[in-house]
């Protein structure tokens, strides 16, 4: 144990593949006919998407009375889904921006994929506030446009902060992702033999020619964008938590919400990235680029953020007792032992108890257990948002108003549809763009930089 030299960084990419082998491995999914496994995956995800589309069309035609939302639970599964999907997106930016600033070179294998997942997750999330309004065709008024009375949006409302945060997040993530894609698209342009593909790659690579005069600016903008994306990602879930924390309902009106939400977002996002990467590296034989070491590090992040979330659960209870506020203590006792105790204990066991298994190195490094724990974490995090939204609303200040909220089949169909949308986009992405950043992987292979002998 004592003779390990911690000054030497372990190799990020296993073996020492040649640059052309890297090109071949990463470009392979784009150039070969997909296997039957791919079609099965696409079939499942697009079926889910279709279920969601049918449920949505049904809701638009007959109105949102088809959902379980009613007095007193007006914010129900649609808002739960929104918070859940925005959270999933956060891992991508954390991996691509924050780990970049911390010079964590192991991120190179997974950064592109995580960024793409950010974009898809935010697209999925953005759907829910729109449909939740009931009349999505008027969504343009969420943006600061004066209405027919020249009234503007209310800039002091957390809901309008949300509009700005999520749309900025989507735009900046997209720019960051696209800037990273340009050199890879140029590589594909020079490689392809198909005429149509050549035109498409030429248009989207904008004429990139690998010039070091360009790389000079490129590296700077990558640093700048990472620097902007880091506070941005923290701000996004902070603002999402303001939707709750700025209100005056017991159980929502707490100052712990912003850090608690950000930790939860990173937690669930890492679980989702880990799950999808396990499948991708298996199907497309990228085990030497998305290495087991990388997955282990992701599991460590999940262990850490999971404990932060567990700490937040504890502190909420402590403050409910310590503040001496009877409404606050009622809400928390009701969470743990009331009507929705089943959801609360699903949340605690998935998020806090099962993740403790990651203390064991063997579990951190074996694929099947970590995959199962990743799934459980996402189940737990969905229920966390459910518990926050529903328990507080279902028992408000007026006992005669209390009710037990149940999502309807249409609600569940839309939730399935959101998974369908997300995974369909992921699956299409896998076969249309390089899932690993080729230029970044080449740059960290041993011997590709001058001065390393």
């Amino acid at each position, binding site marked *: 144990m004592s003779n390990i030299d911690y000054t030497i960084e372990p190799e990020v990419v296993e073996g020492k593949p040649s640059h052309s082998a890297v090109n071949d491995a990463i470009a392979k999914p784009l150039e070969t006919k997909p296997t039957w496994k791919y079609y099965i995956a696409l079939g499942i995800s697009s079926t889910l998407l279709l279920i969601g589309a049918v449920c949505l069309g049904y809701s638009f035609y007959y109105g949102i009375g088809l959902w379980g939302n009613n007095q007193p639970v007006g914010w129900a599964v649609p808002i739960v889904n929104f918070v859940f999907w925005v959270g999933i997106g956060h891992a991508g930016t954390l991996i691509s921006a924050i780990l970049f600033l911390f010079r964590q070179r192991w991120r190179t294998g997974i950064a592109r994929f995580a960024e793409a997942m950010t974009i898809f997750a935010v697209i999925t999330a953005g759907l829910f506030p729109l449909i939740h309004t009931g009349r999505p*065709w008027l969504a343009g008024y969420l943006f600061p446009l004066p209405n027919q009375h020249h009234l503007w949006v209310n800039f002091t409302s957390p809901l309008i902060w949300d509009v700005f945060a999520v749309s*900025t997040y989507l735009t900046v993530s997209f720019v960051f992702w696209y800037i990273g894609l340009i050199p890879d698209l140029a590589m594909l342009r020079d490689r392809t033999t198909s005429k149509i593909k050549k035109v498409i790659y030429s248009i989207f690579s904008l004429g990139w020619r690998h010039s070091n005069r360009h*790389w000079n600016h490129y590296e*700077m*903008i990558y640093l700048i964008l990472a620097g902007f994306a880091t*506070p941005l990602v923290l701000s996004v879930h902070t603002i999402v938590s*303001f939707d709750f924390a700025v209100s005056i309902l017991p159980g929502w009106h707490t100052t712990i919400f912003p850090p608690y939400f950000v930790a939860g977002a990173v937690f669930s996002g890492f679980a989702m990235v880990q799950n999808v990467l396990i499948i991708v590296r298996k199907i497309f034989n990228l085990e030497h680029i998305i290495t087991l070491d990388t997955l282990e590090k992701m599991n460590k992040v999940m262990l850490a953020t999971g404990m932060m979330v567990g700490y937040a659960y504890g502190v909420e209870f402590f403050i409910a007792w310590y503040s001496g506020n009877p409404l606050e203590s009622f809400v928390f006792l009701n969470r743990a032992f009331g009507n929705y105790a089943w959801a609360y204990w699903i949340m605690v066991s998935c998020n806090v108890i099962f993740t403790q298994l990651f203390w064991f190195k063997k579990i951190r490094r074996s694929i099947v257990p970590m995959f199962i724990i990743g799934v459980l974490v996402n189940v737990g995090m969905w229920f966390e948002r459910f518990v926050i939204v529903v328990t507080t609303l279902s028992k408000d200040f007026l006992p005669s108003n209390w009710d037990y909220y149940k999502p309807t089949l249409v609600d569940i169909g839309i939730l399935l549809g959101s998974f369908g949308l997300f995974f369909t986009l992921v699956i299409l992405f896998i076969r249309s763009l390089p899932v690993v950043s080729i230029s970044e992987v080449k740059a960290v292979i041993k011997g590709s930089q001058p001065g390393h002998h």
Partner: protein
Amino acid sequence: MVSNNLYALGALFKDPNKLVKLAKKIVELGYKNWDVHSSYPLHGLPRLMRLKWSPLGYIALILGLTGTSFGVFFTWWTMSVDYPLTIGGKPWFSFPAFVPVLFELTVLLASVGTAIVMLFIIFKFPNNRHPLHDTEYMKKVSVDHCGIVIEAKDKNFDYEKVKALFQEFEPDQILDIYYQEEEVAYKPKVFDWKFITFLVVIAVLTSAVGYLFNNKILYMPPFDFMLNQFRLGPQESSTFFADGFGMRKPVPGTVARGDIYYPFKGKPEEAGAKLINPLLPTKENLALGQEKYNTFCSPCHGWRGEGDSHLNGQFPNPPSLHSEKVRTWSDGRIYHVIVEGQNVMPSYAKQLTEKERWAIVLYIRALQRSLNAKQEDVQ
């Protein structure tokens, strides 16, 4: 041998260390128009090539501050100038509540703007007509080589000398890179008819979709459910009630809120004798009377009560309020006319409260006195 079309001479290396040595030599020899190409950034090369520090940081700072100041201006203008609304008892310009939006605008403008500046201004992209594209040089750089080119337009460029220089460093390959004919002849054609047609088609399509969406689709089912609800509009008929009216009349004897019983209905002389103006001719009461008179009475009676309607005879002109008859009427008699109307004049009891009616009476008295002033009023 050397064609006029020569763009540059290129050398390809598999080992970046050899390339670095050549690059150092090129800097020493003072070439200006040269470049290094590699499919990933080579560490330390920008400094070795004596490239200037990228100015993008300053550009991001300027754009970010622009975003912030625009945000401050916009939130201030919309929330406290254009349509001020008091929300939660907070000041119109409640800066802390605007900070999230300001932050997002800062990040948005700085990131997107810097990317646009880099790609389209500094790099002058999109540029798929560069002579390096579709050459063997570029193909190899894209895979596993790094390359150096020295352009023919460099003033120190000499074909044989450069080739000798390259050979000295044992590159894997030396290549001549030529301009292709169309690259030389190519000029960007902004006013090309195809491009203009494209823009026009896009503009027409966008307007058509916008028009259809805003003026047609929103009024079609199912989007019209807010417009067509199961309820009756004012004055609509209904088959539900026997009398066919949708609107219901109040039960006989119903008294509206604020309505006060008027005991002198149809008895003008009694009203004139018994009613006494409760208001004193103070400045406030006269101002109220003037306002209400100008709103409700002046359209027919004229600004000064002379019967000179500013409706220009579209209605029969009423007689002057300065006649002997009206001047000798008591306050209560005038009040009665306001309540009940007279001849073609309808009742104004619904439009004016009791106090306003008496204030108007006071104002009429002031008007009458102004045209029939006594000697002592002038002094």
